Structure formats: C-alpha cells, structure tokens
C-alpha cells in the first residue's frame, strides 16, 4: 500500500464553544472561542498556525448564519498569519481536513486550523424558522434547481425520498430506525453540552410529529449556534505538542457517479457517501471490525443507517436489523455510535461535532461517556450529493 499523505498528519488540538439552541452569544464570538480553545489545547500559539481552512467560505464581515466566520476575520482576530488558506468547497463538512492534509503534504503549512462555525439560530437561513421570519430563497441554480421548485425546500424531503426507496426495497421500519435517536439521547444525558438530554422512549419516537414520511421531528437534527475547531498538524510536529496526536489513518471524499446531484446516480438511492466510504477503506489496511467508535452523520436518522451500510458495518439493506433494539450501537455495545448524542441531541455542529467527539474518545477524554480502550474511530459526514469519511487512530 502506498503511503497516503493523511498518515503523516494528526489532529493535534480540538476546541468547541458553548452550543446554544436560543441565540445568546454572537456566533462569530463563538467561532473565536472555539479556535482559541483548539490552539490552547494543542499547546500552540496563534503565530504557530500557518494554514486555515473552513467550509463554507463566507465573506469577510459575516458574523452569523449557515457559516459565521470568514477565514480572514478569524486570522485577523487571533493574529494568525497564514501561508495558505482554503474555503474547502469540495467534500462537505470534512473537506477542510482533506485540504489541510494536502497542504501539509505540499509543505504549504505545518499546523492548519480548521473550523465549522454555525449561527443558524441567530440568523435562520432556511427551514421553518426562516419561513416564519419571511426569509426569501433566491432562484435556485445547479442541482437544486431540479429539487426546490417542487415545494421541496429542505434536505429533510430529499432524504425522506431516498429513505422511502431504500426502506421499501429492504423492509426497514421506523421502529428499527428509532433505536438511533433513543440511544443517542441516552448518550447526550452524559454530555453536559448537549441541547437535549431528557430520555426519549419508543412511544415518544413513534408518536412524534411527522415532518416528511418516514422522518419525524425526532429524526431531524437540531439547528444551533456554536463552533467546533480542530488543528491538523504534520505528525512529527504533533508529537512534540501537549496532547497525544490522533493520527489520520485514511480519508475519503469520492463522488464517482453523476457528481453534485441527489437523484441522478445509476445506483440511486446510493449517495456520494457510499463513494467516500469506499475511497476511505481503499486507503488503509484496517477493517470495519477494527473500529471502536463510529461517528456517523445524523442530519436525518436515515443518513446514519446509510453510513452504517456504506462503511460495511452491515450488509446492504441490513442497517435496520443492525440497529434494532439499540443494544449493538449503545456505549457498551459492539459498535457505539454518536457517543456525544450526535446532531439529533447535541445540536447540528455539522460534522465537526462528530470529529471532536472521535478525538475525545481516542484520547480517553470523553468523561462519563468514554468507550473503554477506544483505539480506532470512524467519522462519516454528509449525505446526498456530498460525503466525506475519515478514520482516526491512536498514535503507535
């Protein structure tokens, strides 16, 4: 196997702001705090950071919304003087990590600060809150021009349609899927930062308000204000820092079949995430059986099922039976998933919450929700037209 560049990099620092369901602190301030925490966590100083990457790329002066912190504004705020920067507009939520790996391999940077900054409560930009606020969507272009005109302004609808096809083909049920939000809420009870920490039962799940069949309110993640930041460093440099390096063993970001569309793949209802998972496994000798914890995108619960299948934890169409009853995916099960409560309970930290939690688990810093002897963790981010995957492991 060739030496892929990610194996020579590591997560050296992580930081996360408070997570707010109701607007309380300006989202740009939350982004600043998360970045400061990550730099301190690594034992670095701002002047040691020589690269910055964040998705989505937003204009200077942005302080809230879907992305709340411009690269240039964070650099100016913290006194970072980057050699290299990237808006990382390729592989969804994990793309800054893949960009950082490439920049380090090229010698552009040694320590790259990456973040995902959300301010979706401060300024609701879509969804029902936006509807109430009278937010006007612009004329759609690109692949969404074939989705939005059909009174389908939300990814909830697009994901629901994917799920309808997949569930019908394999007999997956809502009762089976319900194990995921129930288990994640139990995990969230052990996470002081999580927005929702009260337990939910199967009765709660089955009687929850329907959003778009088969997805109910409890299958939809929770928009919030908050930022997660991580530092990707060259491995030898990371070994000199404060925290044990968490090595990036493999990454994937494939989009091999009619890129950038939700519905035109030959293998619909597969998504880009299936390609990202395959690319990730092609870059490592590790196997699904080696994974201690899985941090799988849960913008909608059906995406978590899709990731379980795509990553090979179960066969095609078997994810419903795999999660049924919840034991297997619980903290003491054979494959604990979304140990922080995930986006369904902690809040929509948009993939970087999963990344942060994986690093905590591998460092043994996950507190009450620590999975015993976690050595390898997988992160699957995104759904539909974009997907990114990463496999992290302890050093040595």
């Amino acid at each position, binding site marked *: 196997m060739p030496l892929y560049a990610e194996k020579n990099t590591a997560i050296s620092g992580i930081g996360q702001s408070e997570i707010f369901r109701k607007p309380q602190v300006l989202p740009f301030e939350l982004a600043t705090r998360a970045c400061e925490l990550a730099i301190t966590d690594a034992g670095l100083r701002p002047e040691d950071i020589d690269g910055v990457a964040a998705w989505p790329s937003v204009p200077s002066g942005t302080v809230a919304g879907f992305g709340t912190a411009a690269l240039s504004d964070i650099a100016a705020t913290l006194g970072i003087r980057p050699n290299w920067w990237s808006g990382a507009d390729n592989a969804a939520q994990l793309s800054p990590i893949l960009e950082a790996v490439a920049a380090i391999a090229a010698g552009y940077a040694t320590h790259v600060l990456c973040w995902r900054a959300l301010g979706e409560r401060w300024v609701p930009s879509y969804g*029902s809150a936006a509807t109430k606020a009278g937010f006007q969507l612009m004329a759609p272009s690109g692949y969404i*021009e074939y989705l939005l005109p*059909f*009174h389908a302004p939300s990814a909830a609808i697009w994901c629901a*349609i994917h799920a309808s*096809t997949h569930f019908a083909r394999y007999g997956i049920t809502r009762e089976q899927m319900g194990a995921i939000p129930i288990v994640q809420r139990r995990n969230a009870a052990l996470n002081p930062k999580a927005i929702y920490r009260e337990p939910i039962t199967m009765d709660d799940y089955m009687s929850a308000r329907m959003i778009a069949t088969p997805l109910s309110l409890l299958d939809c993640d929770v928009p919030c204000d908050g930022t997660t930041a991580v530092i990707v460093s060259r491995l030898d440099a990371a070994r000199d820092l404060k925290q044990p390096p968490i090595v990036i063993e493999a990454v994937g970001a494939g989009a091999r079949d*009619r890129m950038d569309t939700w519905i035109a793949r*030959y293998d619909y209802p597969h998504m880009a995430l299936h390609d990202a998972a395959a690319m990730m496994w092609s870059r490592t000798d590790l196997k699904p059986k080696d994974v201690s914890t899985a941090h799988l995108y849960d913008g909608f619960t059906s995406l978590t099922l899709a990731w379980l299948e795509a990553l090979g934890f179960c066969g095609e169409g078997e994810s419903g039976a795999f999660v049924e009853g919840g034991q297997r995916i619980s903290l003491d099960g054979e494959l604990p998933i979304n140990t922080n409560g995930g986006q369904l309970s902690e809040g929509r930290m948009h993939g970087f919450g999963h990344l942060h939690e994986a690093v905590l688990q591998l460092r043994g810093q996950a507190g009450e929700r620590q999975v015993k002897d976690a050595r390898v963790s997988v992160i699957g981010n995104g759904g539909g037209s974009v997907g990114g995957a990463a496999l992290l492991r302890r050093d040595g």
Partner: protein
Amino acid sequence: MSDSAATVKRLLPQITEANRHFWCGGADGRLHILRCGACGTWIHPYAARCPKCRSDSVAPEAISGLGTVAGFTINHQPWIRGLETPYVVALVELAEQANIRLMTNMPRTPIEAVRIGLPVKVFFEPDGEIFVPLFEAA
C-alpha cells in the same frame, strides 16, 4: 394540495442555455430531455458530452413522459407560507432510462394512491415561459 398549489408561487430557476429545454420545453405539451445522437443515451441534468460514448452530438429530444414512482414522501412540515399540507413530493424514474429521475409533485393523484412502482405520466403547470413538469397516475 391541488387547489392551494396553484396559488403558491413555486421557486423557479433562472433559464439558461443549459436548462431551457427542460423548463420551457413543455410549451408543446411534451417533456424534453437531452439525448446523445450517437448512442441514444439520455442525459439529465446538462452535460456537453455523452457520458457513455463521449459524443458531442447532445441535443434535447421529446421523451414519452411516462415513468414510475421510485420514491416519495408525504410532507407534513409547513416549510412554505400559504401552502396547504400534507402534500406529496415524488421522485419519478422515466421509462426510457433508469437514472433519468425527476423530482416532482402529484397534485392530481390522491395521496393514499401514491406508492413506489406506480406508473405515472407527465403534465405541465405553466408559469410565464416555464412549464413545470408534474406527474399523475397513468
């Protein structure tokens, strides 16, 4: 939805040289999709070469407008002000080629009659120069 749908303005795209055949082609009552003149492969959305044979002979062509429901959701969430819920958003696979799929609505078909595998046919809802392709049970 059939009554209220007509009164709620759809969010429609800007017309460009890449999408005009699709959004405006329904003026003649037929659905138009790009097709390879060399090997017959249907192409949607736009690409300038055939994905099968790389031919540059790519042009819009009328298609049957028949298909089947590949997936659908009954949407209950009031995302759009003034639009009555619930309503169906469906994904239709066109009869000619499996990966030519269109997101659509089915306002003329009762919600309880919509199912995966249902045979459907196109009709159009005009809005200025645009003819929005919708489907109903065939």
